[in-house]
């Protein structure tokens, strides 16, 4: 099973800084348990087909998602609803996935599905995968390729 993890990390960094004004922090020893074992979480997946076939997923701690949504929409935290949070997470994953594939192979067409909010995501899937730390909280990211007609750089 191949992954797009190295490129995904670059894409997460670009999306978080450009659209959410949340630069990533270097933090030694961060692991998935730190993300998954702490309070309310929000998860989202996106499937993709075409030159690459598979799934990407994000799990974000609620304080981070609140900060992302606040920064993204330019509205106060008190005015944000559950739908705003979910749509922001969906948009973030959509941008990360699109950005990632355009870096992996700009000549390939990958069709992204509509991002889905997951209420019962199997958190064990995230073991050993990416953890991203910001000043506002952490998120975990996962990419899994089930098929490809290309050779993803950095896999």
């Amino acid at each position: 099973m191949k992954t797009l993890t190295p490129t995904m990390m670059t894409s997460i960094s670009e999306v978080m800084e450009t659209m959410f004004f949340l630069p990533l922090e270097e933090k030694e020893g961060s692991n998935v348990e730190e993300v998954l074992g702490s309070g309310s979480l929000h998860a989202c997946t996106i499937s993709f087909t075409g030159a690459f076939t598979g799934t990407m997923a994000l799990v974000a701690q609620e304080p981070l998602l609140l900060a992302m949504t606040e920064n993204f929409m330019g509205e106060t935290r008190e005015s944000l609803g559950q739908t705003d949070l979910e749509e922001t997470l969906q948009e973030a994953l959509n941008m990360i996935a699109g950005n990632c594939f355009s870096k992996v192979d700009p000549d390939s067409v990958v069709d992204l599905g509509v991002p889905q909010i997951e209420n019962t995501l199997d958190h064990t899937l995230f073991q050993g995968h990416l953890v991203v730390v910001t000043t506002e909280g952490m998120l975990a990211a996962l990419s899994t390729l089930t098929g490809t007609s290309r050779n993803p750089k950095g896999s």
Partner: protein
Amino acid sequence: MIMTFSILIVDDSKPMRSVIKKTFRAAGYGSSDFLEAGNGLEALERLQESWVDIVISDYTMPEMNGLALLQAMKQDDLFRAIPVVVITTEGSKQRIDQFMASGAAGYIKKPFTPEQVRDMITTILGESNEDVDTDDDDFDF
């Protein structure tokens, strides 16, 4: 006199529509009228109801995506002259060529900066004559 425009923003994500509106305001088009639609079909309905100067559309949307909207507009005698800018996560050269060949006035890749949006819009609509609170060329959303 301040020039105002009617701008139709088509995206299934409400947060993204907010971001695009914010970006237009930051770019000096804050006095414009903003219309919104959640997909291509809704956008065609908005176009039947009101004249717009420019359409800013996402690509991936339910019901009717941005490419289908663009193609429908270009086949319509009334709508074909309205410039359409596609804002998309789709970064492949083939897809971008498809947008441009279908008549898009331009495309902006997500994630985008306000400067990228401003540059694209001023190329199409012309420089805004609104006062903009910016520090040289750098401004935030």
